[in-house]
């Protein structure tokens, strides 16, 4: 590669990253700005953080989001992992059909998933609430867990497991000592993925949540539609910081566990 090309590519990458970060940086800056209007810098303040953290509606929706994401993760990880093993390791009638059906929520646009689940809940008379939100989140998390875990299961050499069995291990012990250590990191990152997907989701939740099970993205959406709300900048900055922490933590763990994803 010529030095010129190298420099051009570096500049391009810098521009792309600048574009990605520019609005986020502005948001963080406004969150400390002592002005409602967000046009000029008027001085440093922390009052928007006080506003955000004394806002019952925001805090409640944040609690709801954590609750929903926790349940969605707890339910979708076992389902998706079971599906990964079954689909990768076994042949049975209707396997392809099951696979397509399980992957459907990943292929279809979110608005279709949301409306179809709403139609179902209305048809069976299930009132919107936490159950409907969690169920809908599990619906779109399972395919991601399935894909993430399945790749790792596929990389597992069955000969290892067979060797363990030949050496007298029970199937359960062979699974625990041979299979699980290889697959567990994939399961852990699938869990992280599910949690983040659920925590961030707007469109499907829009159709399946009620006022009492409203998640943070729904609350934020409502506030953005209603207009100026400097507390929004503060809560957004907190979310960016939390994301940063999680990404850093995941990177640290990955490095300590020896580089493999």
């Amino acid at each position: 590669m010529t030095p010129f090309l190298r420099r051009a590519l570096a500049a391009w990458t810098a521009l792309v990253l600048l574009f990605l970060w520019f609005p986020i940086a502005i948001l963080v800056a406004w969150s400390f700005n002592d002005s409602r209007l967000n046009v000029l810098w008027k001085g440093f303040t922390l009052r928007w953080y006080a506003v955000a953290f004394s806002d019952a509606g925001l805090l409640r929706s944040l609690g709801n989001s954590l609750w929903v994401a926790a349940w969605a993760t707890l339910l979708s990880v076992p389902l998706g992992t079971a599906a990964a093993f079954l689909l990768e390791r076994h042949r049975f009638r209707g396997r392809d059909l099951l696979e397509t059906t399980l992957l459907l929520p990943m292929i279809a646009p979110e608005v279709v998933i949301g409306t179809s689940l709403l139609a179902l809940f209305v048809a069976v008379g299930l009132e919107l609430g936490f159950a409907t939100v969690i169920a809908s989140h599990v619906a779109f998390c399972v395919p991601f867990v399935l894909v993430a875990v399945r790749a790792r299961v596929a990389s597992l050499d069955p000969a290892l497991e067979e060797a363990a069995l030949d050496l007298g291990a029970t199937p359960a012990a062979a699974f625990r000592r041979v299979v699980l250590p290889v697959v567990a990191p994939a399961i852990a990152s699938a869990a992280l993925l599910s949690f983040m997907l659920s925590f961030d989701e707007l469109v499907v939740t829009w159709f399946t949540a009620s006022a009492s099970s409203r998640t943070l993205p729904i609350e934020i959406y409502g506030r953005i539609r209603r207009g100026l709300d400097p507390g929004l900048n503060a809560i957004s900055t907190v979310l960016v910081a939390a994301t940063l922490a999680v990404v850093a933590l995941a990177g640290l763990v990955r490095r300590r566990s020896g580089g493999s994803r």
Partner: protein
Amino acid sequence: MSGAGAASRGSREPGPPGRVARLLLAPLVAWAIAFAVLPTAMLVACSFGRRGTLGGVEPGFSLAAWGRLLDPTVRVVLGRSVAWAGLATIACLVLAVPAAWTIARSAPRRRAWLLAAVVVPFWTSFLVRAYAWVTILKGEGLLNGALLAAGLVSAPIEMLYTPGAVLLGLVHTFLPFAILPVYATAEALDPALVEAASDLGAGPVRTFREVVLPLLGPGIAAAALLVFVPALGLYALNDVLGGGRVDMIGNLVADQFTGAARDWPFGAALSVALLLAFAVAWRLAGRGGSLAASLER
């Protein structure tokens, strides 16, 4: 693809499920039926219903909702959705491919940092980012303020609530979706191939076109899909940045179910049609992918 990988390692063929596996199978099938098959069936059933005067669905069998799919409105909105999602996809790829390539080719330590710089915005709610753009683009916002102060314009220029703002929002939302898969492919590439092409006298453009691009092909295809599909279905973004017009197909669907248009059967018919279109596209893309793969060999 995983099956092919397993076979190449000479493993045994996957067998029928044992006792444990069959126990696992039951809840999975139940799940698939309850949360993928049934909702779709309900949507289909709903699309054959009749809208109540005030809203809701009256039971019965009617093809009215499906007939309305032929309305010029649907054609216009669908055309615009495809055009905007397509433009956003192209813009994302143009921005992403060189960046992803550069990140993948940089030293490991720096690579980790650059990657984190892509991943953090990826996980930052798109709504929050759209809101940030509102404060930047509005008539008395940051950008207009800066332009006026610099004397570059004499009056604020119209940026917010324009198609351009929506497109900007789409590109910003989905750019990480484009960078990450291309990066994954680029990282796995053998740099020697590119060096070899250069050594053999190929110019940078030719090297890119004839060596790099084909090798990145699968990553680029995945990126295009990951941008195009969600961009097509999105509706909140153009509400925030586009001024509340019924711009894209996602708005049209949402408007029927939870918005002012309140026509569930029509919304359901639109949803089902969209689902069918994506299923067909998915099949074709799969075929196309395997076709490309077989041509490579």
